[in-house]
């Protein structure tokens, strides 16, 4: 690249952005400079000498940034902390400590073994090294740059970052590819702002342009210590004995991105944990699901049970030791050998017995539940991650469960708070329609209309079949005609789809989704009488903007555009497609390649850009003043409709009426509209105005804005309306369908966006959250408030609004008039103030949909928090940007969209989705499953541990409460480790009440989770009772069977070990059969795990009884195994122990079935195939009555159309029946029957 050309380009580039981007930089001579070297400002960086930073005192951390919760070093303290937030684990700790004392009822090895098991499990924590292994070019000496991974960066390294790359750490900008040392960065990842920010090097380092320049570069930076403040920086760069003060505008922050700049060189000042981005990131709070929190309470309950039976034991033991009757001489209790049964001090003995009992009956507290849950949830998360239906092929990303804590929470979500940009929409504008000279172009029919007409047609078909032939056919035809006649604008096209031929369907330009042959292919030049206005329209489109053309891949003829807003880009693309290619921009000129309507050939025209009146939110318009090659001066203006209509000349309103109608139609389709107007200015007038304007521009100070505003007003008047354009804020794939399904499943959806109200409402329409017959309640503050008095007024105003809305909502019949609440940021801020919150939320919760616009990130988090508190519902927040982080962290479940760039939201989220539409499957299928699985699993665990643990207690009542255990210590260890843990995993991972497609077809099933019926207290108590019953039957039956008579033919009598082994066998069988009864979806894995567990008990027993010199030696092969009573007894005990559950489930299934039961039955008996209409009908019925979503909108449209039809038909018939013709026909019809 020749340097001359580069120079030319440089000027063009870096200056142009000063239009909008360059804000006054902070004072270069930092007043804090004297601070350098003090505490807090002690960092020294030797540029280009990273080796100096390998030793102290200049050793700084490397660039590794941990993104996972644990790493090897912090694993223990953190994991322990995480664990001990759970109550049961405190007990676990207590038990572990007690085990080291003589109070321990078990042998030590058997206690340590499960501990080792738990820890071994937690070591399997995966590390996320993705970010840290990204590559960057680093100077390795002699002007050579090499690729290195991010984590290996050291302070002092010189790095080269090229366009669209992220900065690997906090850098000091040394030079950029622009000669003036400017570069642009995008800080979306840090603060959510998408606009570009300029950064500028010091004069002193400008010379470092090429790689080779860094051979000998040396410098020392003295600067502040690491801190989280993103917008400040204090430091000095010492170069060649000269000190240069540094400011934030030389600092490039990690996680921001280089834009519009070929490359930059920088020196690393802060790495890894020192970087501002990492310092600034809040640790995402670890969340716990509702089920798990309830589980804690269940554990408390079990703990209470444990305390109770321990108390009984302690009391009993004291009584035993005291009573002369019971204690025998053979126990030698009076020797005071055993402090646990000392008759002299029964209280103390009792106390010690109590402590021992706590450990002994510890099996009541399902500690291993936490391990099992963790395993199950990780596996569930793996299955969620692997689901092909949630894999996005375009980005190659899949759904990722970033935490496995919340899987089951997904099945209980009641509200979704969604961000707009990047979440629902692609942040990509598509030119969709336009209205020029009062004629609407771009005839795409909206999806809703399509669906409505399709459904209508189906109805008509049915109708036709249900009635007899000829008459109804006529009626259906008539229906077509009537409905096409109704409404105006696009509604005309309701049923007459594809009237506009789409000859080139395969043709697609990004950002341009416009199909109308009247304008395409330059056909418009033949089309109209008033081609002039059309040309003007296109010129506004091509000139009135701040965009810049860029060559795509260096091809001159293929131009792409970059502009401040994506809308402008879409205008430029559209203009290019219409034949007005904007191809060059300099400081003061714009070059268009125009289609000349008279010749049909393309001509290059240069326009002198005289003035640019910027867009801002209060002006809501933007204008350019240009002079064309003929010397005529034009003002081209685009802006919001009402703003432009106010400023039209009397003779400029020719198309106003038609345009207004089109605008309203576009608006309802969810399109974003903008009105174009122009005006010709004569030379004199311009000169006069220009002096005013330049003067205003020159003013420095507060009144500058106002003066500029006034100056603009002077010229932006008497405009001539050209038409309007409509762009679509392109929704992501499948968004409306997904919202539809979610609404049917009973989820409420709120939209929170930082965008302005109009845009938010547009999106509301386009994703069917809103529809035209919804009553929109707007909550906004009419005036800017600065003083406290004004604040009070505004507050009063809002209160008044809220009250009236509340009244409205309660009075109206809810079914026929759905409500939508639209709130803007200002009003929201006041409403969320303490006194109005309740009122606001009660209104909001009663509305079918709530849209909050102009919401700051903080407010997003605040709303989430308030709604969570107020409603107590499970809330899911979904967003993609850094501005959603607060909301994502605050919500019960945070979901980040990973498809777009920017990782902040994803990092804060619990689940990341590549696309919004996967939310449907994530919630309705996986959420539903996980909820049921986890609930069932916990209940089973409670059952299992009670069934097992209580037998120990019962047995103790027979041993004088001495703390003797019935089972061998190693049996007990194996209980949770091997013998019963694996079937639980099959229940928690593989169980499905219904298959995934049925989950999706019957959204009502999701409500079982919302209503939490699978983990209600009723169920929990039921399962506890079931456990008690099972333990009772297991224990008493065994005791009775093996009381004192001989065990076998040889007259041998069973001792503790024999009875223990037999009882234990029964327990294993019982709990495993119980889980088999709970599972409704048997894969071979489940079979393998359940029956394998039982089998493994016998294997274990066999192996264990071959261990020599144990008490249980040959217990299985010689003693218990050969006794028939052992096997026959097991059968009886298991049958009795599971009987209560079987009877319960049979009664429930037969007489009080639940939805999933019936659907299972229907599916099982093949009703879905045999009686398909019923199957479909039930699906329809299972949908929650909702006003939100696509099908609700279709329904209302159909209702609307039918009403219209009905009315028309009525009038038609009344006119017909009154006609004499009809009367004669009818008479003739009737007569034959009379004959």
């Amino acid at each position, binding site marked *: 690249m020749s340097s001359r050309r580069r120079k030319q380009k440089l000027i063009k580039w870096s200056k142009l952005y000063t239009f909008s981007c360059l804000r006054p930089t902070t004072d270069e001579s930092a007043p804090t400079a004297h601070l350098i070297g003090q505490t807090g400002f002690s960092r020294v960086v030797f540029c280009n000498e990273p080796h100096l930073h390998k030793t102290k005192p200049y050793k700084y951390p490397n660039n590794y940034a941990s993104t996972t919760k644990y790493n090897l070093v912090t694993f223990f303290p953190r994991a322990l902390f995480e664990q001990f937030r759970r109550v049961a684990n405190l007990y676990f700790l207590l038990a572990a400590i007690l085990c080291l004392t003589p109070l321990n009822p078990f042998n030590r090895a058997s206690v340590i073994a499960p501990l080792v098991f738990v820890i071994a499990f937690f070591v399997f924590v995966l590390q996320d090294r993705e970010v840290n292994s990204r590559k960057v070019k680093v100077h390795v000496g002699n002007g050579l740059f090499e690729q290195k991974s991010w984590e290996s960066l050291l302070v002092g390294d010189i790095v080269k970052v090229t366009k669209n790359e992220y900065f690997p750490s906090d850098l000091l900008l040394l030079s950029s590819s622009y000669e003036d040392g400017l570069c642009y960065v995008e800080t979306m990842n840090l603060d959510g702002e998408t606009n570009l920010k300029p950064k500028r090097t010091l004069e002193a380092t400008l010379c470092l342009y090429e790689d080779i320049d860094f051979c000998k570069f040396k410098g020392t930076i003295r600067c502040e210590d690491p801190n989280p403040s993103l917008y400040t920086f204090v430091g000095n760069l010492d170069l060649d004995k000269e000190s240069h003060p540094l400011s934030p505008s030389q600092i490039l922050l990690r996680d921001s991105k280089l834009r519009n700049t070929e490359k930059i060189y920088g020196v690393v000042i802060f790495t890894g944990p020192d970087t501002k981005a990492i310092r600034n990131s809040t640790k995402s709070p670890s969340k716990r699901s509702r089920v798990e929190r309830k589980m804690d309470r269940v554990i408390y309950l079990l703990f209470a049970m444990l305390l109770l039976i321990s108390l009984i034991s302690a009391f009993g033991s004291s009584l035993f030791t005291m009573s002369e*009757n019971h204690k*025998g*001489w*053979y*126990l*030698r*209790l009076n*020797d005071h*050998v055993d402090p646990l*049964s000392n008759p002299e001090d029964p209280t103390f003995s009792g106390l010690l017995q109590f402590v021992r009992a706590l450990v002994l009956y510890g099996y009541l507290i399902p500690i291993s539940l936490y391990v099992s849950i963790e395993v199950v949830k990780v596996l569930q998360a*793996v299955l969620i991650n692997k689901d092909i239906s949630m894999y996005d092929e375009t980005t190659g990303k899949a759904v990722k469960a970033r935490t496995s804590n919340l899987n089951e929470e997904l099945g209980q979500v009641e509200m979704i708070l969604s961000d707009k940009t990047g979440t629902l929409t692609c942040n990509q504008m598509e030119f969709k329609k336009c209205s020029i000279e009062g004629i609407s172009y771009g005839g795409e029919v909206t999806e809703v209309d399509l669906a409505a007409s399709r459904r209508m047609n189906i109805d008509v078909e049915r109708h036709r079949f249900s009635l007899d032939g000829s008459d109804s056919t006529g009626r259906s035809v008539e229906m077509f005609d009537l409905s096409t006649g109704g409404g105006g604008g696009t509604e005309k096209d309701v049923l007459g789809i594809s009237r506009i031929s789409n000859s080139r369907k395969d043709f697609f330009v990004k950002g341009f989704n416009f199909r109308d042959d009247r304008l395409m292919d330059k056909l418009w030049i033949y089309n109209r009488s008033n081609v002039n206005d059309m040309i003007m329209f296109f010129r506004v489109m091509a000139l009135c903007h701040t965009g810049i053309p860029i060559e795509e891949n260096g091809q001159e003829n293929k131009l792409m555009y970059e502009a401040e807003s994506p809308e402008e880009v879409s205008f430029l693309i559209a203009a290019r497609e219409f034949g007005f290619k904007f191809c060059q921009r300099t400081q003061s000129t714009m070059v268009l390649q125009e289609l000349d309507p008279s010749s049909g050939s393309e001509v290059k025209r240069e326009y002198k850009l005289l003035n640019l009146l910027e867009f801002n939110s209060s002006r809501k318009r933007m204008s350019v003043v240009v002079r064309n090659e003929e010397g005529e001066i034009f003002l081209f203006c685009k802006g919001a409709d009402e703003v432009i209509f106010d400023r039209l000349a009397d003779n400029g309103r020719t198309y106003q009426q038609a345009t207004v109608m089109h605008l309203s139609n576009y608006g309802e389709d969810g399109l974003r509209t903008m009105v174009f107007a122009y005006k010709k200015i004569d030379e004199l007038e311009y000169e006069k105005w220009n002096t005013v304007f330049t003067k205003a521009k020159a003013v420095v100070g507060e009144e500058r804005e106002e003066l500029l505003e006034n100056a603009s007003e002077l010229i932006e008047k008497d405009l001539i309306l050209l038409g309007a354009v409509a762009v679509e804020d392109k929704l992501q794939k499948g968004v409306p369908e997904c919202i539809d399904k979610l609404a049917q499943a009973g989820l409420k959806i709120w939209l929170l966006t930082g965008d302005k109200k109009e845009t938010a409402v547009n999106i509301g329409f386009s994703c069917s959250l809103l529809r035209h017959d919804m009553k929109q309640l707007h909550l906004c503050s009419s005036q800017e408030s600065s003083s406290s008095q004004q604040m009070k007024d505004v507050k009063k105003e809002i209160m008044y609004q809220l009250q009236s809305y509340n009244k409205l909502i309660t009075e109206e019949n809810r079914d026929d008039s759905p409500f939508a609440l639209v709130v803007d940021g200002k009003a929201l801020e006041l409403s969320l103030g303490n006194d109005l919150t309740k009122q606001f939320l009660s209104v909001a919760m009663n509305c079918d949909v709530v849209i909050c616009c102009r919401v700051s990130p903080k407010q997003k988090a605040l709303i989430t928090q308030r709604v969570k508190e107020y409603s107590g519902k499970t809330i899911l927040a979904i967003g993609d940007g850094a501005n959603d982080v607060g909301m994502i962290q605050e919500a019960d479940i945070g979901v980040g969209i990973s498809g777009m760039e920017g990782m902040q939201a994803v990092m804060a989220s619990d689940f990341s989705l590549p696309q919004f539409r996967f939310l449907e499957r994530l919630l309705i299928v996986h959420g539903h499953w996980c909820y049921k699985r986890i609930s069932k699993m916990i209940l089973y665990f409670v059952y299992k541990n009670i069934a097992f643990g209580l037998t120990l207690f019962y047995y103790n009542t027979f*041993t*004088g409460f001495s*703390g*003797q255990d019935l089972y061998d210590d190693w049996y007990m260890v194996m209980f949770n480790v091997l013998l019963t843990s694996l079937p639980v995993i099959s229940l928690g991972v593989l169980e*499905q009440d219904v298959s*995934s497609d049925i989950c999706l077809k019957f959204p009502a099933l999701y409500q079982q989770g919302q209503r939490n019926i699978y983990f209600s207290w009723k169920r929990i108590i039921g399962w506890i009772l079931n456990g008690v019953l099972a333990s009772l039957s297991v224990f008493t039956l065994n*005791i009775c*069977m*093996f009381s*004192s*008579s*001989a*065990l*076998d*033919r040889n*007259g041998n*009598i*069973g*001792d*503790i*070990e024999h*009875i223990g082994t037999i009882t234990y066998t029964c327990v294993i069988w019982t709990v495993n059969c119980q889980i088999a009864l709970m599972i*409704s*979806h*048997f894969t071979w894995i489940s079979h393998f795990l359940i029956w394998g567990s039982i089998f493994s008990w016998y294997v274990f027993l066999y192996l264990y009884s071959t261990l020599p*010199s*144990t008490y249980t*030696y*040959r217990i299985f092969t*010689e*003693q218990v195994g050969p006794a028939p*009573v052992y096997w*026959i007894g097991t059968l*009886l005990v298991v*049958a*009795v122990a599971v009987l209560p559950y079987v009877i319960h*489930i049979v009664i429930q*299934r*037969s*007489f009080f*079935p639940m939805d999933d039961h*019936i*659907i299972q*039955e*229907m*599916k*099982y008996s093949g*009703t879905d195939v045999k009686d398909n209409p019923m199957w479909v009908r039930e699906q329809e019925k*299972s949908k929650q009555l909702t006003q939100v979503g696509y099908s609700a909108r279709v329904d209302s449209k159909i209702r609307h159309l039918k009403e219209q039809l009905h009315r028309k038909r009525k009038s038609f018939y009344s006119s017909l029946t009154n006609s004499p013709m009809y009367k004669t026909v009818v008479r003739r019809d009737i007569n034959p029957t009379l004959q």
Partner: protein
Amino acid sequence: MEMDGRSSSSAVIEADSVSLQQSRRSKFIHQFTQQSLPACKPVLSPPFVISVFFVVGLIFIPIGIVALHASRSVVEIVYRYDGECVPEPYRSNKLAYIKDDSISKNCSKSLKIPKHMKAPIYIYYQLDNYYQNHRRYVKSRNDKQLLHGLKYHDASSCHPEDANHGHPIVPCGLIAWSLFNDTYSFSRGVVDLKVNRKNIAWKSDREHKFGKQVYPVNFQNGTLIGGANLDPNIPLSDQEDLIVWMRTSALPTFRKLYGRIEEDLDADDVISVNLFNNYNTYSFSGSKKLVLSTSTWLGGHNDFLGIAYISIGTSLIFIAFVFLLLHVNNPRPYGDTSNLSWNWKPISS
């Protein structure tokens, strides 16, 4: 589907078992990750439930009858002697009687055999209210010492019966110390009935848990004498009384095998029992019983198993009938949609 195709095609093209296995594995992994493994989804339908109850009931009742029959065919004689064997003057103060070594503990009684008893007839002693399962008691032993003798010095678990006069005790611990020491001998008329006291303990205990080279040392030498003494010249592995006694019972009422009579006893035979009532159960109001019992394949006399089977079987059949009745009277069609929540919600609310 895609996976299906691949696996079948590879199977057809080449019968390479490796690739077949691989594709099978990948198919499995696919099905597993997509949660679409083939599964059986049993649904409890009323006919199925009723028939299951019925069938299980029908299986249980015969088992119960067989078990009950076996139990009933056992002849068992239980004779409590702890009261009767105390001479009249000591009845009010039995403790004094049992503690007084000078009084002869000999006691003779005669028992009538109610039914023919087929050899072997097992002789048990039964103790009631004797907490052999008390933790303190259960733990007071040292298995290693029993097997290896004095090679194992650590007998802290045996305290206070671990050492005497500074010398370790073998076998140590309360269990051995409190060894049962009543003895029984039987005679039919004038002929003594031979009591076989060999092989009353588990074979594995004799061979692997009690040392063949371990002899009682310093046993019952302390100030407090517990139960029986052991012959220091017989190794522990042959002290079967001790081995049986060391198998601590699960419940406070228990029997232990004393020996076998290996002759049939006929109905109405009168046998006389000559016993030495040495063991002190009087201090804790326990009772002592002598039990003579035959056995069957199911073990000793215990009606419970049979009765339980029969009653559970009948109640299952009863439940089956109740369900049948309910089902006939109030049938719920299989997969009936009117029970779906969305179909009854509007009516109820």
